[in-house]
């Protein structure tokens, strides 16, 4: 009896998928930016979920090849290829939680396409409406988080302020370059 119910449910699911796919071609795209849902990506940093606004990213890559480069910059993992250029890869877990994660291989490209952040795992892509923005949640010692969180997958999820983190890194590298004589 339970097996027949599961089978009917799967059939209904299949029909629903087909219907949704077919109906998606008839959906009118949302043009109002304010009414359009905002897209977020959820990722995992040391078994904790964090969100990042999609429009603050340039790209997402899995199993990126990170070439280690000796450096005295803490959190700097190396360089990775992006098209025809190299980008610096930083440890997102180190910068957000203060804990290194050298085995992270997901890469999140900055909007300016000059920095990449490595993290543990990509969870999902979410379309979030305005109503899902909630007050910020206590993140402990985490840094570079926005003040407001977003309810993703039913759970309030802290959102990483990626532009702020990138600006901080640029200022730090810029200061370091000037200190080293621009080499």
């Amino acid at each position: 009896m339970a097996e027949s119910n599961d089978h009917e449910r799967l059939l209904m699911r299949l029909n629903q998928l087909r219907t949704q796919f077919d109906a998606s071609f008839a959906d009118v795209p949302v043009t109002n930016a304010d009414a359009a849902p905002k897209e977020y990506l959820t990722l995992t940093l040391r078994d904790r979920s964090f969100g990042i606004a999609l429009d603050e990213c340039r790209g997402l890559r899995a199993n990126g090849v990170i070439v280690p480069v000796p450096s005295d910059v803490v959190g700097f993992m190396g360089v990775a290829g992006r098209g025809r250029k190299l980008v610096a890869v930083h440890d997102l877990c180190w910068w957000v939680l203060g804990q290194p994660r050298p085995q992270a291989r997901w890469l999140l490209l900055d909007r300016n396409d000059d920095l990449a952040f490595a993290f543990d795992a990509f969870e999902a892509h979410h379309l979030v409406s305005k109503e899902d923005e909630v007050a910020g949640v206590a993140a402990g010692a985490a840094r570079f988080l926005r003040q407001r969180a977003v309810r993703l997958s039913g759970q309030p999820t802290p959102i990483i302020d990626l532009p702020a983190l990138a600006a901080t890194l640029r200022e730090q590298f810029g200061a370091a370059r000037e200190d080293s004589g621009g080499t």
Partner: protein
Amino acid sequence: MGRNTTFGRKLGFGFAVAALLTVVMSVLGVQSLTQVVSSKDEIIDVGLGSLLQARTLEVHAEETVAATRGYLLTGQDEYLQRHREASQQFGATLDALSKQLRGFDAELEQVRTARQAYGLVAQELVSLDRGAGLPEVVAATFERAVPKRRELSAAVDTLVSRVRSQLTDRAAQESAAARHSVNLLIALGVLAALVSAGLAFALTRHLDAQIATAVGQVQSSSAELQAAASQQATGSREQSTAMSEISTTISELLATSRQIESSSQRVMEMAEATAESARTGDDIVISTQGTVAAIRQHVDNVVKHMLDLGRRSQQIGTVVDIVAELADQTNILAINATIEASGAGESGRRFAVVADEIRKLADRVSGSTKEIRGLIDEVRSAVNTTVMATETSSKAVDAGARQFDQVTHSFQRISQLVETTTESAREIHLSTKQQATAVEQVNVAIASVAQASKETETSSTQTLQTASQLAQLSRSLLRLVRPQATA
């Protein structure tokens, strides 16, 4: 005669001596008698015969004379024939006498001469002429024949007398010899009697002593025999009593043996029934073992199929993972496309729509793959659970099969032990049967021994009586030999 000489030899020696003397006496007596008889016979045969023949000679001579006289008187030839015959007979008789007699040559010659003379005279007388007349004949006869006849008669008488005299002498001699022989026999008889008496006395005394000694030994032996017989009688009585008790005990033992035999028979039957049941159970165990093996094989097949199902589900999971990876990659591409589209401005809006749909599709695929993964995980969990349960069941089946093998082994062992027990019961039954048979034989033997004991007791009693009689006889014999001996 030494001490080693037996009583019989001694007695035999005595009797031999007596017999020898008797034989000697007999021989001598026989010889004497024979001699006497022969002498007497000789006297009778020869002497009297000679005398008779001599008297016959006289008769013949008288017949000759008478015949001559008759012829002379009558002139008949008959008398002449008679004369001749008488003369011949006289001659024959004289010849016979000459052969018989010894030492009478002179007398015989005298008779012969006289006869010849008379014969000549008679011949002359006979040849006289008959014409001469009778008186002449008579005168011639008186003148010539009568003297010759007288001479012949005298010669014959002389011969007869001599023969008679000789006969008488011979008879006297033989009588003297007979008396001598009688005296000799008497002497020998006396001597034999004395010797026999002495020998008998010596033997009697010697044998008396030996007999007394032997009788004494017999008496003592008979006393010992009497004592031994008494002991034997007592022992036989006790043995007979003991044998009766043993016979009773053996009878009880026989009854017990029969009961044991009966019990062993029942045990053997029960053991055989048990062995039969064990064999039947063994067959059932063997068939069940096959069933268990089939169950194990079936369970192994189920496990194998479940493991195969697990591998298939794992393969499905891998495929789903691939699909999920594709969905994720698609999602990432869609995200990147959205990002690129958002950066492309207005011209990227349609592409953003497509990218968004692709992203949605990727989400749906990802959701479905998650759901599929969930189902696969459930299937794999169920498979694992089933495999574990099956393995548990398999292990349980294996354990059960091992236990069943142990049970089978134990049952076979029990079956073997039952067979051994049955065989042992059979041997016990046979042994008890043999034992009962042996006890029966022992009972029969004991009965025979008891009977023999009774007979021995009876024999011992008789022996005791015989010993007592022997003792009594020995005392009697001792008293016969030595009257002064006491009992």
